[in-house]
């Protein structure tokens, strides 16, 4: 990785952390549990990394591919489970009719 790329990625990291702080500090306590399971699902974004790790031709490194596939299954559990369970919760939040 070149120093330039690293700096750009660090900018991305710092700025999105600030965006995160801005967004989340306004969330009311009622929504904290769904928010947590929702953000949990989002942290399953590692699925992208898992695909990249399990995708290429294994060639000389079959271990890398196997580990990638395990990561892929785990990340998918995280993503699918997290979103579905958040949706189940949010479906229940109703205002008085």
């Amino acid at each position, binding site marked *: *990785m070149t120093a330039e790329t690293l700096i750009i*990625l660090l900018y*991305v*990291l710092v700025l*999105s952390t*600030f*965006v*995160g702080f801005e*967004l*989340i500090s306004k*969330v009311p*306590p*009622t*929504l*904290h*549990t*769904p*928010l*947590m399971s*929702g*953000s*949990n*699902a*989002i*942290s*399953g*974004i*590692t*699925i992208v*990394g*898992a*695909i*990249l*790790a399990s*995708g*290429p031709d294994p060639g000389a*490194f079959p*271990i*890398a*591919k196997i*580990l*990638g*596939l*395990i*990561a*892929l299954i785990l*990340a*998918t*559990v*995280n993503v*699918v*489970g*997290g*979103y*579905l369970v958040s949706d189940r*919760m*949010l479906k*229940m939040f*109703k*205002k008085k009719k």
Partner: protein
Amino acid sequence: MDKNIVIQLTYLLSSILFIVGIKMMGKTATARNGNALSAVAMLIAVGITLVNQSILSYTEIFVGILIGSAIGAYFAQKVEMTQMPEMVAIFNGVGGAASTFVAISEYARVHQSPESLDFTIGISLLISVLIGSVTFTGSYIAFAKLKGIMKGGSITFKGQHQVNAILFLIMILACIMTLIDPQNELFIYTVLFLSLLLGVLTVIPIGGADMPVVISLLNSYSGIAAAATGFVLGNQVLIITGALVGSSGIILTQIMCKAMNRSLVSVLLGGFGQTATSGPSASSSDIVVKEVGVEETAMIFDSASNVIIVPGYGMAVAQAQHIVRELMELLEKKNINVKFAIHPVAGRMPGHMNVLLAEANVPYDKLVEMEQINDEFSNCDVCLIIGANDVVNPAAKTNPSSPIYGMPVLNVEKSRTVIVSKRSMAAGYAGIENELFGADNCLMLFGDAKSTLTTVVTEIKNM
């Protein structure tokens, strides 16, 4: 156009949708759509990654995604709302493990190649392994504690902090060695093993009322691990979303700490409730309580005009949320004003009570936060406390020697009558005695919350 540019622009689109989705999750009316939007963002990110030309074998990937989706969907449908903290803990652990596996896989691929391990990639890789592993084992310890497989309280032993510090130093040393000599696999596996161990060791001393803090903190870790993986792969979408989750977890952690008047450091050092559990029997005998029967309870409710219900984790354990809703509807039919007072750390995770009551069809505008409702207790005729203990303990305001002194609590004792529905006189989760139960205006309604309240509801109906 270059294929790579298309891929990068699609990642950008995905990141925008994630941010908008999280923003929408901040309002009850739009939260469900926000969650769906962030799921779409995820789908786009996955879809465009599959287009990547270095990917040759789609069969295994689809099989992997299929297996993972099936497992995830099964648990998401099956889990009870009372068990949401355990569920979040498990999913957190799975996410952490995934980050670790990606990092180790990347290591297995690059460390033998001639250009060897780049310094910055090496550091990111090690951070990803470290935080991912700590999240993984830490979450499973948290899960075991919540589930009752493991003792829920704090587990401490002599020299615990020293042992942790030494293990941490060895791990840092192994990290440095990995960077110096990436070819030697021994070093990175030492890092892996010690991180897994540290995850266990750092969570076992945390117990009792501190559990919601740990869940929030581990949530943050899983995001940081994803962001570190993003640096390994040079992928912005991982960094952006990882940072969003990381900051969200930190904010929730701060809110929880503030609600308990505890610093994050003291939570992490553990040992909560230790001093209190050592000698509680002496003080418990000093408290003389007044018992109340179901008929009398029904009569007290009938003559009230303002009722505040304070739910705690005990309500979830007794599965009493549905009968509580019935009680609320019945009282409202009699023109009695009913509100719910929600303490920020009631339950085992942030917002736990809100979800349980929502499941029981209690409209969310009935649930009032502590700061808003604390002045209303003086106008309240009957305050019904169901399975809550530490969050209504006046010792937090009056007794400087109490372990929870300084923690903001609900001013329930200001109500004309306080009725406490409780199984027995056992101390709360924090293991502290509650002098509220001995107060003049406090009546104890002993028994399982669900069955006693069911009888109370029938009694009121028959009036």
